[in-house]
Each structure stands twice: as C-alpha cells, then as structure tokens.
C-alpha cells in the first residue's frame, strides 16, 4: 500500500505529467480563455510527436550535415511546431467562422484521421505503421544534448541529491518542466494583456467583441494556433521517456487532458499544471491500488489487465463528480467560471 503511494508520488514530477500539464495549458487557452471546443488535443500531440521523430529519423542534421546535437534538437522541435501550426490552420480556416460546435466535431475527427494515417501500413517506411517508431531512432540528439551528463557544461550541478539529472530520464524531466514553466509565464503574461482581454471577450460573446471593432476570426485563429503549438510540444515531451506509438494518441488521451484541465480549473494559469500533475498521480495510484487488490483475489476471475481498466472507470466517475460539485476546478473562482459552452 505504501509502496503504491510512494510510487505514485514519484510520478508527480515525471516527464509524463509535465507533458499532460503542457497539453492541458494549451487546451486551457482554447477552452478556458477563448471558449474554443477542441476535442482533438491528442491530434496536436501526435503531430508534434511524429513531426519530431520523423524529422530526427530522416533529416537527422547531426549525422547528415554535422550540426551540433542541440541545434538538431531545436530544429526538430521547430519542425514539429511548424507542422502543428499548419494543422491548426487547416482546422481553423473552415470552422472558426461557424458556431463553436463545428470546431468540436472537426477536431475530434481530424485527431483520429492523424492517428489512422500514422498507423497505415502503406506509410510503414515513414511512420512505422502500427508499430510506431523506436526510441533509438529519435533520441540520439536529445540524449547527446544533456548538459548534466558526464562532460556536459552543467555536470557539476548533477551531484548529491540531483545526481539523477545526469541520467536520460532526469534530463527529460528537467527539460519538460522548464518548458512547462515557460508556457505558464507566457499564458500569465498574455492573459493580463489587452490581447488576453479580447480573447476572454470572445469566450463571452463573439458578436459583442466584433461590434467593438475586433477581428474575432483572427483572434480565434491565434488562440487555436497557440494552444495547438503547446499541444505539439507536449506531444514531443510525451515520447521522450517512451517510444512513438500511434495508439497512445487515441481519443482517450484527449479526454485525459480534458479531465486534467477541468480538475485544475480551465481559466486559470496554474490550474492545468496542478490538474496534469494530480491526474497523473491519481491515475497511477488507482492503478497500483487495483493491482494490489487484484493480488488479493478481490476481482475474482478477472485478469490483471482487465482489472487495470477499472482505473479509467474511476477517471470517468471523478470527472462526473467534478462537473457536478466543483465545475470551476480546484484553482478556479466559482464566480468567474462555471461551465460555459
């Protein structure tokens, strides 16, 4: 029991929970601030993950052109970002002139399209098909640019309690949280500016904002692109500690990110971060607990993996309870945000 709790606590600051947090921050810009219903955040994450992995695998500037590995890393991230911007434009140009529901439908479908394209057999050469892309194919640059590793310029930091920074996983976690902090500062700065005021106004009433001389379409597009880029970067962070698997970008991922966002509070700066961390912790805690209970034979003839699925039942129940009793999330101000669709 204690082991389960400790193991889950270890997950609090893992690279995965950072990826969830960043994806939730992006979704918070969409839903919490601009009122855009994006049900395809997993699609943005997939675009980011595949963009990054494919660029590193095939262009590979480090071996092809002799670039330093940190530069190749940045180039691969930029490539993924450009891909997600194009994806956002394709989604936004036809739908943002229409009512919000249309964006919801289009995003949920296109996220699935991205996943199915990635796992098509005909594209196995590029995307690895349903097998995905192995970690060794794209982790060369990120592992080589760890400044905390032996011989790195920050190696002196990685001593004593911080020693784990010099490992690959420590470096992923560090980089992920740095990017989350950058995103938090960015959102905080934007949302207290006149730009953020227009975005929040659009959430309340598009026509009113239009009647005040603001180009609503352009602002909605900017919000969609910004949140989508954060989703794409979250997708990159998501694949550092694992391999690229098309099915890890299924709709479940989108709804997990939504749960994290609503748990923390949609229109708050720190809510998505808290939600992402807490969601990841609770999920692994419930999973561990179920595994323990399964060991005691409580679930009868169920197999361990069948019982494991019950964790997602708990997620669903938690979401319902949240919506009913605290719709504004943990960080949210009840006066400011109850659900608004």
């Amino acid at each position, binding site marked *: 029991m204690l082991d389960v709790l400790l193991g889950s606590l270890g997950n609090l600051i893992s690279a995965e929970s950072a990826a969830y947090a960043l994806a939730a921050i992006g979704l918070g810009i969409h839903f919490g601030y601009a009122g855009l219903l994006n049900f395809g955040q997993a699609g943005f994450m997939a675009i980011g993950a595949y963009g990054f992995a494919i660029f590193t695998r095939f262009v590979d500037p480090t071996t092809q052109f002799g670039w330093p590995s940190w530069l190749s890393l940045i180039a691969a991230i930029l490539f993924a970002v450009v891909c997600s911007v194009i994806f956002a434009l394709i989604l936004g140009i036809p739908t943002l002139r229409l009512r919000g529901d249309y964006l919801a439908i289009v995003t949920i479908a296109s996220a699935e399209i991205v996943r199915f394209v990635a796992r098509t057999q005909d594209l196995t050469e590029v995307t690895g098909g349903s097998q995905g892309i192995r970690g060794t194919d794209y982790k060369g640059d990120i592992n080589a640019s760890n400044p905390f590793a032996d011989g790195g310029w920050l190696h002196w930091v990685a001593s004593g309690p911080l020693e784990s920074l010099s490992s690959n996983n420590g470096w992923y976690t560090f980089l992920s949280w740095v990017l989350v902090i950058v995103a938090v500062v960015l959102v905080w700065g*934007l949302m207290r500016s*006149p*730009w953020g*005021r227009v975005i*929040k106004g659009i*959430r*309340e009433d598009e026509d009113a904002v239009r*009647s*005040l001389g603001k180009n609503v379409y352009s602002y909605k597009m900017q919000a969609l692109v910004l949140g989508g880029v954060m989703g794409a970067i979250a997708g990159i962070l998501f694949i550092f500690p694992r391999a690229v698997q098309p099915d890890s970008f299924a709709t479940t991922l989108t709804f997990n990110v939504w749960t994290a966002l609503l748990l923390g509070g949609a229109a708050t700066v720190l809510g998505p971060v808290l939600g992402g961390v807490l969601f990841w912790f609770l999920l692994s805690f419930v999973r561990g607990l179920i595994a323990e209970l399964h060991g005691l034979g409580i679930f009868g003839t169920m197999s361990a993996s069948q019982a494991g699925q019950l964790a997602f039942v708990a997620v669903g129940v938690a979401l319902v309870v949240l919506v009913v009793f605290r719709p504004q999330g943990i960080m949210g101000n009840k006066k400011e945000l109850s659900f608004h669709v």
Partner: protein
Amino acid sequence: MSDTQITHPLVDGPVGPGCKKVDPIVIADGVKRQFGGLTAVDVAHVEIPRNAITALIGPNGAGKTTFFNLLTGFDKPNEGNWQLDDQSLANVPAYKVARRGMVRTFQLTKSLGRLTVLQNMLLGARDQRGERFLSALLPFLWGRQERANVERADDLLRRFKLHEKREDFAASLSGGQRKLLEMARSLMSDPRLVMLDEPMAGVNPALTQSLLDHVLGLKDEGMSVLFVEHDMHMVRHISDWVIVMAEGKVVAEGPPESIMQDQAVVDAYLGAHHDTDLGTLTNQQVVQIEQEAAAELASTDEEEKA
C-alpha cells in the same frame, strides 16, 4: 401622403419616404435582403441625418433589426449599397464597420458576463497596441496607452453611474445597468454614429429617464444616433426624425410630432381596414376588399414569376 408639401429643416426638399437630407451621415440605396422567398428588407433609398437622433420604428416583422444588421455588417444583403460619410460600407465585415465609426448595441444585451465592468469598457477602446499578439507580452509597449484608456473608461463609468461597479463582473449587473454598460462601452471607441437596437427593452422605469438623458447627451457631443424602438414615449420624447418601416420598406418619414398621423403609418400599424367594423360591411365594401385581395394576390404571383 398629403398633397401639400411639408418641409423640415433637416430635409432638403419635400418630406416623404426616402427624402434627401441636408447633411446625411448614412445614405443607403436599394438594400435588399431575402430569406428564401421572404423579402425581409427592401429599402429603395434612405438617408440618416447627421448630428440628430433618428428613430426607426415599425410593427413587428417590419425588418428594422435586419436592416440594422445589414448596415453594421452583421448580415450580408442580396444587393444594395450604403455609405457612411462617402465611404462605401457594402461588403465590409462587421469589425471594420465598427472601426470606421459606426458602433452598435444589441436588442438582447451583450455584456461580457465574466469580464469585469472595467474590462468590458477597455475592450471598447480602439487601436490598442497591446491587442497585437507579439506586443502583448511586452507591457512597456502598451502600458501608457492602457492607463489613458482606464482613465477614459473611469470618466465614462462615472457619467453612466456605474463607477462603484467597476470591479464587479458584468454578469452581476441588472438588465438596465447592462444596457448602460453596453452604451458606455460603445462610446469608448469615439463613434460617429451610434446604433442602438431597442435601448429601452427590459429597462426598469427608474432607469428610463437617465438612459434618455444619455442618448440626448450623445447628440450634444456631436454624434449621430439611430435607434430602433417600440416605446413611442421615447420616440416622441427624444428623436428629431422618425423613419417608419413596414414589410421591409420605408413607408414614411417625418418629425416625431406629426408622423403618427401619417396614413401610411396608421395603415402599417393597424392595417388599412382597421376602422371598418367587420359586422357592418356593405356589399360594396366586401366587393372592394375582395378586389384588393385579388389584385394583391396577382401582384405577388407576378413577383414570383419574375
């Protein structure tokens, strides 16, 4: 329409539907909007006088709000042209119409509920540097402009007696206060023409007088006002000029004192046979009504064929 030609200081020539104004701010020509087979708006020519308060009245379904939406770019006409101070506004999107100085309010108030009253006001200011994405992150670029806007917003809020509500969410205001906020917000952009869609709808009688005074105040500051209203008391009390629409067309125009005596207006509101008792129709009258109905049917048939 009477045979004696009436004149009026706002009008260049004789008074009548579509008459020329001495100094028009808006001129609309042949504006037509159809929803399927229904012609909601079919305005041949209308001019709105500058620095005056013009009321747009008419029975329900006359096309007043649709005409409003067309003028402000919130709806696109099938055909037609209109201009604000010699600048054509046909096919100009709503946000650009607002930037050119023609700002509207809505029949169902659109206050931005989960923004504070002050934020609502600041949203109205035009040409804000901080509203561009890249400069939004650099407060030193827009801080000074923002402070000036806050000052202006505070002045307006004091004038509209909303100042103590400054930090409250707009959703917590009463219906009448929201109307006031919407009007104050539209003034943040220094409009030339303020378009008010039913400013009195749902307003507590206690606030009516102050709202009327604010509308009159707009004129004193050199703005022009066009408003849609059903409240005839308000129309008579504050408007300088009245335009009457019925079935999508401008059927009459005139000063508020005499417009309600116009036969076209009476017909529009009450129907052409309103003073005939249906119980005492003579045969002659019945025949006349039937002929009229047949003629009307024939003309709509022709229109459909054409």
